[in-house]
């Protein structure tokens, strides 16, 4: 086992070469491969379209044996993202029961973006947003769009 650096470098190279749709990934700091800065475009046909979300991906020292952590730095109105300064996203693949050492960061980013396109209200962290998503989709989309304009517009 050559330590996690080698594996991380390879994944970073792969992502740069074959970027998942709507996502760009860079190291926060060139000398630290454990912290990735992610820019994610809101998927078309979703209330997040036109928004750009900044995320921080942190890799544990024991990576890839332990899952990475993903955090929204841009505020987002979404049933599966905590509406606090943690901005934690509830993603199955990020849980230690589901994460496998051969799982890839690109898969994490793809899953995260598909959750933007299709929220999963049954596995929500923000129950009131999930309720609204289920029962009053119009109002949910209105608020989500409003938040995009307020927090996630590209110019900001």
């Amino acid at each position, binding site marked *: *086992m*050559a*330590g*996690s650096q*080698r*594996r991380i470098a*390879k994944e970073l190279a792969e992502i740069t070469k074959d970027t998942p749709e709507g996502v760009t990934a860079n190291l926060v700091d060139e000398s630290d491969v454990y912290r990735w800065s992610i820019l994610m475009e809101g998927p078309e046909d979703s209330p997040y379209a036109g928004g750009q979300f900044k995320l921080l991906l942190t890799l544990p020292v*024991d990576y*890839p*044996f*332990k899952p990475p952590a993903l955090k929204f730095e841009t505020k987002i109105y979404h049933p599966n993202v905590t509406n606090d300064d943690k901005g934690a996203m509830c993603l199955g693949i990020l849980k*230690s029961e589901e994460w*496998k*050492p*051969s*799982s*890839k960061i690109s*898969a994490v980013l793809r899953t995260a973006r598909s959750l933007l396109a299709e929220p999963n209200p049954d596995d929500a962290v923000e129950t009131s947003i999930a309720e609204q998503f289920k029962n009053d989709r119009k109002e949910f989309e209105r608020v989500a769009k409003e938040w995009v304009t307020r927090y996630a517009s590209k110019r900001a």
Partner: protein
Amino acid sequence: MSADSEDEFMSGMSSEGGFEDGNESDSVSFGEEFEDDEPALDFGLHDKDITSAPKKPYEVDFDVFGPRDIQKYQDKQIDEVGAILGQPPESTAILLRHARWNKERLIEGYMDHPEDVLEKAGLGLAGAVPAKTMVVDGFVCDICCEDEPGLETYAMKCGHRYCAECYRHYLSQKIREEGEAARIQCPGDGCSRIVDSKTLELLVEDDLKDRYHELLTRTYVDDKDNLKWCPAPNCIYAVECGVKKRDLNRIVPTVRCDCGHYFCFGCTLNDHLPTPCALVKMWLKKCEDDSETANWISANTKECPRCNSTIEKNGGCNHMTCRKCKNEFCWICMGVWSEHGTSWYNCNRYEEKSGSDARDAQAKSRQSLERYLHYYNRYANHEQSAKLDKDIYLKTEKKMTNLQSSSGMSWIEVQFLDTASQALQQCRQTLKWTYAFAYYLARNNLTEIFEDNQKDLEMAVENLSEMFEKPTSELAALKVDMMDKTSYCNKRRIILLSDTAENLKNGSWKFNIDINTA
């Protein structure tokens, strides 16, 4: 019983072959009136025939097992089922764990669709590949990206191959840090194949193997409804009891682990006889949350009619001025003070309907609070006294030693002190819970009998408790008296518990809440 349990277990194994086929109603007399949909999974002989004393209505049958018994029993089941399915032991173990040890369902399912069953348990893609590491030309480990020639690699039957070092690291992390055992999957992304014991044997260091087997035993007990770990700290025993979840409103299955800990098999809390689990849960929640604070507030305070601040009246005068919004109002009718006209300080709106409604609601709330406090104070008092008695219990040993030297009594002859303090502990525990029980009882004749029994036990306990405060020099002379009082306490406890249990079993108690919704 502790010393014999293993022997009994062993003799059960050798003499009776299919001992798990024993009929449940043999071992759990209570279960007779409830239909059973699955056969009991008995460990072995019950000591029912050995003990001569007839069972009390509140007692249940149970057995205590050590880690080795559990391991043996697991192995035996694996052998049996493996022979039927024609699968090697390591695969059978995985299948049984996957089926949560319901072997009838497993065998049935396997006979109908063997491939499905194997696939679901993570054993798909059959094909005999021996468990060994190998070197593969041009191999790159997908986990660490190492591509050095001659790298040792390993894969299970699913073919997801990684370098042996990554495989090892993965397994040890799952076992050591995540406490996983029976359901560790292949490290391949999306592969649900379960890591079998052969792979574990091959790749994991010896010290971790022990931990692995310990965890496997743990999941075995966790998976079985009729087995529970003793909740006492560091206790290694598991208890088997046939009482089912649905029976818990009719019986309080209290068991005694070989470590000496009494607990309820239903909820694993400390012995809470005679109160059924559902009421215990309700009571503890009631005592814990601040619903009673809210009750106090509604009994003792009112809200300012203007700004709704909560106000506690701290003087006799009914002319209230809200500290917050400076609203002046009458405490009795809650009307604006200036409208009281000439009848200041003597509210003449006292009989107004709205005012009397408010007072009724307040009186009711106060009454309910007082009722709760009545039971709670007694409950808490016995809890507290039990703690104090426990302190005395800890000093008992010293007392016993002193008594031996001062009176010339032998160790055996001073055992009565130990017996007495244990009886005291147990009776206080029971008394404590009688108050939670009584809180939920609706008033009728049975309740009166219950309260008489409660009173008798309480008097017996206090009489005995008092004797413990006597100086050591007097204890020798009190021996006979103390032994009498101890046995009287135990007798009163048995009477109370038997009566309560009989009525519970027959569904005779009337509660002031719906016990089934708890």
